[in-house]
């Protein structure tokens, strides 16, 4: 999968690239409007990570340009602006998703995955990791040949882990992903423990190897290697 990261902050784009590369994405970087436009014209990307405020132009203009070229690239907007108007503008002009800074890299990765799944597999997609297979369309999970029953939260949690395989994901990032940042759960990790415990139990019970590894203090890692 090939991505274009359009972000004027070098530090941030470097982090994004480093994280996503480990997820086997090929990443190009553009730091201003012109570079981004050139790269978009030159090649096709599966997904574009687009900052709104750019030197030499606006991310939304770039989005309009992309749409005028009839390119099918998926677009996720990352912006410091939290305003609903921006979000609506962004999504209205054809972006697939919108993420507010500062985001967790795991969240970005999960969102990109979701866009790619939606756009390129038309939702018909089965992810297979060892003896675990997740059918995105039917939202069911199999260990070997046996279906396991997951709650909605557990299923979302599993997908989140799959989008961030072999990565340490913080408890905060997971909580934000599952419940939203404004629920006020930020220090109520018991909540998360229960869900993780249930997910592990269900997967383990059916004879799976234990994918989920606890990283002391920080969070969890979905290990496949």
């Amino acid at each position, binding site marked *: 999968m090939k991505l274009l990261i359009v972000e004027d902050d070098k530090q941030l784009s470097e982090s994004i690239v480093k*994280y996503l590369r480990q997820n086997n994405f090929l990443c190009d970087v553009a730091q201003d409007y012109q570079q981004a436009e050139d790269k978009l014209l030159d090649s096709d990307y599966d997904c574009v990570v687009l900052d709104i405020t750019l030197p030499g132009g606006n991310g939304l203009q770039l989005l309009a340009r992309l749409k005028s070229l009839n390119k099918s690239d998926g677009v996720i907007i990352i912006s*410091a602006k939290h305003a609903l108007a921006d979000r609506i503008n962004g999504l209205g002009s054809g972006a697939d998703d919108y993420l507010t800074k*500062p*985001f967790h*890299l795991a969240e970005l990765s999960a969102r990109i995955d979701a866009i790619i799944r939606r756009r390129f597999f038309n939702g018909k997609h089965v992810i297979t990791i060892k003896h675990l297979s997740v059918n995105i369309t039917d939202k069911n999970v199999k260990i070997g040949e046996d279906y396991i029953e997951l709650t909605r939260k557990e299923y979302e949690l599993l997908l989140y882990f799959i989008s961030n395989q072999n990565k340490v994901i*913080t408890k*905060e990032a997971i909580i934000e992903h599952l419940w939203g940042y404004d629920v006020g759960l930020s220090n109520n990790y018991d909540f998360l423990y229960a869900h993780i415990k249930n997910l592990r139990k269900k997967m383990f019970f059916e004879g799976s190897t234990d994918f989920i590894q606890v990283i002391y203090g*920080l969070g969890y890692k979905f290990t496949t290697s």
Partner: protein
Amino acid sequence: MKLIVKYNRAFFPVIIILLLIFSFVSYLFTKKVLQDEVDESLVRTEYRLTQFIDAHQELPVMVSFDDVRITIEPTNVPMSVRQIISTTLSVPGRAKNHPARVLIFTVKLKGVLHKISVLSPLEGVKTLTKTLLLIYLISFCLAFLILIFISRWILKRIWAPFYNSLKLVKEFKIDDNKVISFPVTEIEEFKEMNHNFESATTNAQNDYKRLKEFTENASHEIQTPLAVIRSKLNLLAQEDHLKESASLLLEDAFDAVTKLTNLNQSLLLLAKIENNQFLNKIKVNLSEALEAIIHRYQELWQNSNIGLMSQIDPVFVHAHNDLMDILLNNLISNATRHNVVGGQISIRLESGRLTIINTGRHKALDPDQLFGRFYKESANSNHNGLGLAIIKEICLASSFSVVYKYNEGMHTFCLEW
């Protein structure tokens, strides 16, 4: 002390003293003029007498000329000049003597020196001066009253622009976007005052606006470095063989970034509400929004064994959609965060009112500071202390009222619109 009172206190005694002096002087002056008139008539009588004596070479028969009494008596002392003096005249039947003027002169007739006194009573003059004095006093009193009235009226009229400006300044709100326009006046001093008021209020508003914009811009600018920090921490967490101690340090750093992010977003939200960036009001289905939020919290409540009692009527409000979501979320989050294990939350939404009651600490929150920024009831609480301030600001922006009540461990927030 009101200006008019101060003015009257300074002005009236002077006026009264002046009027009294003037009345008295007028009185004296009138009296003098009238006395001079009497004296003149005495001189005329003297002239007529001397003419008579010169013509007839005999003393006239004593007839009374009006009030004038003439007495002639022989004398040895010749007078070179006539004398006019004040005297008194006894009136028969009256105890009091009346003032009078007497003119004395001598005339030589057939070798005999006669002293002639012409006496004219001042009775008429006295009455006249008294009457005049009365007229003076009455008209002065009238003039004085009219003066009071006029000065009051003029003061009111003249100072009207001042009081208008004062009222406008009193009503001035720095966070109001309205520019105050002061009434036009012809009075130079007030013109200058209004001009200064105008520039002061405009400057204050502009400064305040700039400050708010600064807050908003600063919050925006902070987002990117925060994103960098979080992303670097994310990458650091991926390092192989991270020591446990390093993990704990990272956890704390993640926590701090999250707190800073929330704080920044709250401040940004407050700045935006204050900058009136949520003007797009629509008909919001409050019941639906509330039910969606309750749904999100249900799991959390079950976990803490918090019981929910809710009664939600279909309610629509005219407000900003996003703000309503934030408002409801903050209220519910507040009722959850400050609750106790095994506690209760009661939510009642009816037409024009939303009441949220939750169990919590057995101590009322400080009603004066409750809605202030960075209010925390305990030092180690984990929230940023802006939740209630945001509730207050949203209520203000949406013309809702919000009241906090406490009764035996039950904390109530009641919103009305």
